[in-house]
C-alpha cells in the first residue's frame, strides 16, 4: 500500500548566519549561560505549521500557494530529507523526487557516464541502467553527442538528457516542484506525453505548482498552503 500520512507535522528551520554557526558563539553561549538566551538557538522559521493530511493510492495532489508558503519544504519532508520537528510523517512506497532533475550530473563527464551517475542517485543499479540506457539515449535525441562531455551541450540538451533519465524508472510516489517542460516545441510535446505516462505508472503524485491550469487538469485534489498551513482543501 502506497501512502503518505502526516500528523501534526511541524518543521522549524534554524537560520544560521556565519556568527551563530561559529564555534566561538557556541562557547561564549555555554559560558554565559542564560544571559543571551534569546540568542541561544538563533532564529528559526516555522516552515510547516501543524499540518495533518493523508494521501492514498491513486491520488494526484496539487500544492498551491505563494512563494515561501512551504510547498518545497513539504515536498522535502515527504522525501524524508527534513525530519519533522514535531509530529510525524509516514511514507510507504518508493519515492522519486524530481526537484532537481540534473542532480549529481557533472559537466566534465560524458552524457553516457552521467546517465549512470544520475541513476545511481535514484538508487538504480548498474545492470538495471544498462538495460534502459539505449532507450534513454534514443529518447533524449542526443545521438553521437552522448559520448561527448556534457559541457559541450546546450542547456536544452542537458535538460533533455536529465529528463529522459528521470522519467525512465517508475516509482510509487512522484514528487515534483513545478511541472516539467523541457526542450523546444517538438521535444516538449513528446516529453509531455512521456511524463504523463510516467505519472500514470506511479501511484501517488504530489505536484507543487503556480500553474493553476495544469493543476486543474492533472490533480484530483488540491491543497492550498499559506504560511506553512493548509488553508484550503478542494477536490
Amino acid at each position, binding site marked *: 500500500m502506497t501512502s503518505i500520512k502526516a500528523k501534526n507535522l511541524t518543521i522549524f528551520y534554524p537560520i544560521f548566519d556565519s556568527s551563530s*554557526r561559529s564555534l566561538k558563539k557556541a562557547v561564549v553561549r555555554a559560558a554565559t549561560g542564560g544571559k543571551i538566551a534569546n540568542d541561544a538557538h538563533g532564529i528559526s522559521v516555522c516552515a510547516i505549521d501543524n499540518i495533518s493530511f493523508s494521501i492514498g493510492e491513486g491520488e494526484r495532489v496539487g500544492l498551491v500557494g505563494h512563494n515561501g508558503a512551504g510547498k518545497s519544504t513539504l515536498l522535502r519532508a515527504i522525501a524524508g530529507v527534513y525530519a519533522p520537528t514535531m509530529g510525524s510523517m509516514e511514507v510507504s512506497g518508493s519515492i522519486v523526487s524530481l526537484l532537481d532533475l540534473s542532480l*549529481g550530473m557533472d559537466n566534465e563527464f560524458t552524457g553516457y557516464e552521467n546517465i549512470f551517475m544520475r541513476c545511481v542517485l535514484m*538508487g538504480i543499479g548498474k545492470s538495471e541502467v544498462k538495460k534502459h540506457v539505449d532507450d534513454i539515449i534514443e529518447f533524449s535525441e542526443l545521438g553521437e553527442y552522448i559520448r561527448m562531455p556534457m559541457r559541450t551541450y546546450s542547456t536544452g540538451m542537458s535538460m533533455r538528457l536529465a529528463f529522459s533519465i528521470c522519467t525512465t524508472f517508475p516509482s510509487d510516489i512522484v514528487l515534483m516542484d513545478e511541472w516539467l517542460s523541457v526542450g523546444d516545441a517538438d521535444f516538449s510535446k513528446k516529453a509531455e506525453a512521456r511524463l504523463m505516462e510516467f505519472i500514470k505508472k506511479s501511484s501517488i503524485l504530489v505536484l507543487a505548482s503556480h500553474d493553476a491550469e495544469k493543476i486543474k487538469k492533472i490533480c484530483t485534489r488540491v491543497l492550498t498552503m499559506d504560511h506553512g498551513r493548509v488553508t484550503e482543501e478542494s477536490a
Partner: protein
Amino acid sequence: MKISNNAIINEITAIVKYFHMWSLLGWYDIKQRYRRSLIGPFWITISTGIMVASIGLMFSTIFKSSVKEFLPHFAVGQIIWLLLSAQLTDACTMFVQSQSIIKQVSLPLSVHVMRKLWYNIILFLHNFLIIVIVLIFAGNGFLWEYLLVIPAIILILVLLFLLSMILGIICTRFRDITQIVAVFLQLIYFFTPIFWMKKSLASKQAWITDFNPFFHIIELVRAPLLGKTPDLYHWISLLIYIALAAVITFFFIKRFRNRGAYWL
C-alpha cells in the same frame, strides 16, 4: 526528532546495501579530478614518489642514518599519514559538498562517508605502489610479517569511517572546526615519528609519541613492513580508539542524524 535504534543499524547496513552507490560516486570523484590527464591518478604516485625519494635521501643524510633504514621508515609512515590526514580533512567538508544530494534524496549518512573514504582508499592504493618499490629496494624479500598489514589497515579504515562521521557532523554545524582540524593535522605531523625516528627521542621525551594516536596507528602498518611484529600495546590503543569513536558516533547519529539537512 528522536531516532530509533533501527535507524542507527541502518547506517551500518547501508554500507553493504548502498555499495554500488558509494563505490560509483567515489570512483567518479577520482575520474573527475584527473579528467583529461593522460596517466590520471598515477600523478599522485609520481608526486608522492618524488617527495618520498628526495626527503628520504635528504633526511637520511641529515640524521646520519642509512638510506636503507630511513627510506622505508619514512615512505611507509608518510603514505599512511597521507591517507589519515586526507580522509580527516575531507571528512570535514564532505556533507557540505554533497548538500545538493542530501537536500533532495534521503540517504543514510554513511553513504556520503563511504564515498569519501573510497576515494581516499583508491588514492592510497596508488601510493601503495611506492611502498612496494621501496620495500624491493630495501631488499628484505617477502616476510610473513607483511600479512599483519591487512588487519591493521582494515582496523584503520574502521576508525577512519567513525571519525569521519563525527567530524562530518560537527563541521557541518560549526564550520570553524574544519580550519581547526587542518591546523591541528599540520601540527601533529611534526610530533609524529614520520620523518624522524622514535629512537632519536630521549626516553624522557617518549611521551610525545606515547600519547600520540597517530604514532600507534602508523606503527601498526610500518612495523610489519619493516619486518618487526608491532607491539601489543599499539593494537590495544587502536582498539580503544575504535571503541571510543564508535560510542561517540552512536550518540552523534542518535542526536544529530536528522539535523544535518537543516544545517546545510
